[in-house]
């Protein structure tokens, strides 16, 4: 009896010691050099593999249909955003890998044309969540800044790589609609859903306006400056200093600062106001970013704000309060602001808990979906497009 107890205690002690050795080492199995995810020049191996999978989706309609069906069952927005992130990624890839530019341009055109066709044929509600139909938009005719902004940025990104006259008119029309609405709105806040405005959508739309200025020689710098000044004054959470994610047309907050929004907002702001963008990233990193035992992840809300789990945050993993949505978007923030340590630790988590699946040089993450993988591809390739517009290099 005594010897049995001794054996069990020895076994338990060995398990504790083994766990104490293994757990701090676990991340080493999944940590790769940062260049595996993102490189300053050219394309990283991961970007190539993710891109190969996305390009396959756009050459095999049945496969694309299957992927989109799964996403649309949860959120029709993801179908649309998956297209946007892929087009923006391909624009950056064309600048990083000029030899493949014709293939990237062809795919960008295919995505843009199909998106515009669906918007025209099915109406704007096709890419919105169903509650958009529950109320009327306050400003008529109804427009969603979510759609207008992202479509405009898709068109502009394509034109930065190579001019296409057909898209020039489409971009001008889209930008004019957004600018006109900004000018008519007393608080410069535009609806994405009925009386529901999103920070993410405003920043993306302003990026599109900035790029249209770069492409066509227009000047909306006063509008952009004015909007940022208003946002700094009225749309910042006083406790964290982070921009809130959604609000009514009168500026009343709906949601506070959110990880699923702020990382992309900081990235978008980089094109508009570098200092403000860096400040927002620094605050988001402090309030939301974490590295535990070598694995990086992000919370959806700062400690000072309690929000509700929703379709944007994704399921929240208890104890560590890990948000899939925020952690995925954190790649974009970390990549934008060259936060190598955080980015490498996020990449380690991705390979540990994202369930990568590789087939013939094509990579997808099973725990993700098409829009998630497209956002990761964007994080792995972003940089050259913004750089070109910021430096004013020839379109």
């Amino acid at each position: 009896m005594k010897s049995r107890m001794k054996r069990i205690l020895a076994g338990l002690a060995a398990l504790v010691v083994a766990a104490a050795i293994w757990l701090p080492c676990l991340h080493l199995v999944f940590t790769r050099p940062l260049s595996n995810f993102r490189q300053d020049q050219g394309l990283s191996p991961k970007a190539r593999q993710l891109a190969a999978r996305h390009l396959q989706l756009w050459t095999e309609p049945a496969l694309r249909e299957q992927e989109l069906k799964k996403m649309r069952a949860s959120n029709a927005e993801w179908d649309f955003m998956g297209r946007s992130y892929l087009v923006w990624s391909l624009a950056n890839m064309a600048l990083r890998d000029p030899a493949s530019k014709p293939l990237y341009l062809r795919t960008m055109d295919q995505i843009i044309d199909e998106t515009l066709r669906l918007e025209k044929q099915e109406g704007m509600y096709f890419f919105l969540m169903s509650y958009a139909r529950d109320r009327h938009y306050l400003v008529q005719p109804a427009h969603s800044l979510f759609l207008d902004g992202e479509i405009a940025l898709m068109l502009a990104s394509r034109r930065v790589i190579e001019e296409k006259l057909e898209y020039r008119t489409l971009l001008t029309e889209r930008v004019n609609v957004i600018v006109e609405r900004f000018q008519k709105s007393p608080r410069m806040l535009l609806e994405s859903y009925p009386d529901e405005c999103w920070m993410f959508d405003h920043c993306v739309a302003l990026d599109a306006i900035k790029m249209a200025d770069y492409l066509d020689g227009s000047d909306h710098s006063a509008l952009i400056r004015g909007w940022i000044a208003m946002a700094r004054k009225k749309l910042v959470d006083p406790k964290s200093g982070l921009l809130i994610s959604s609000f009514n047309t009168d500026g009343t907050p709906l949601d506070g600062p959110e990880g699923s929004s702020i990382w992309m907002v900081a990235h978008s702001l980089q094109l508009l106001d570098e200092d403000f963008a860096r400040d927002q990233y620094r605050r988001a990193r402090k309030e939301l970013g974490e590295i535990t035992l070598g694995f990086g992840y992000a919370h959806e809300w700062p400690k000072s704000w309690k929000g509700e789990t929703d379709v944007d945050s994704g399921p929240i993993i208890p104890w560590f309060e890990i948000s899939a949505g925020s952690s995925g978007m954190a790649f974009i923030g970390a990549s934008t602001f060259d936060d190598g340590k955080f980015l490498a630790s996020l990449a380690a988590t991705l390979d540990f808990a994202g369930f990568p699946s590789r087939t013939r040089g094509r990579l997808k993450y099973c725990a993700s979906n098409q829009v998630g993988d497209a956002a990761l591809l964007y994080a792995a390739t972003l940089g050259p497009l913004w750089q070109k517009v910021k430096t004013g290099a020839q379109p």
Partner: protein
Amino acid sequence: MIKLLWQKLALFRRAEFLSPRDLLQRALGISVLFLLAHLAGLREFTSVLNGTVGSVAAGWKLSSFLALIYILLYLAFVILVPVLVLAAVILTVWRRGVQKEENSRIAQETSSRRPDAAG
């Protein structure tokens, strides 16, 4: 015949609870279960982690259930299996150390008794 052969393989013999062999048997069991789940394609269902259904045909409930099975087995495989193997190694090394100490103690005692026995 097969049963006899099976039993002759030391790793598959019934082991004492928390002995090195018991820990290795558990590690092997988990690895086999994970391999089966992996080969069955349950990895695809982990998309429920981001709120996307693993398969439209299977529906949410079944997709979530299959994802849960896969995730638990995966975590057991990458976290628990190495811990069990390491613990088995630690126990073996420790036991050998204890055994060695015991042997040298017995040898010392035997050699110190010899002159008495001779006298």
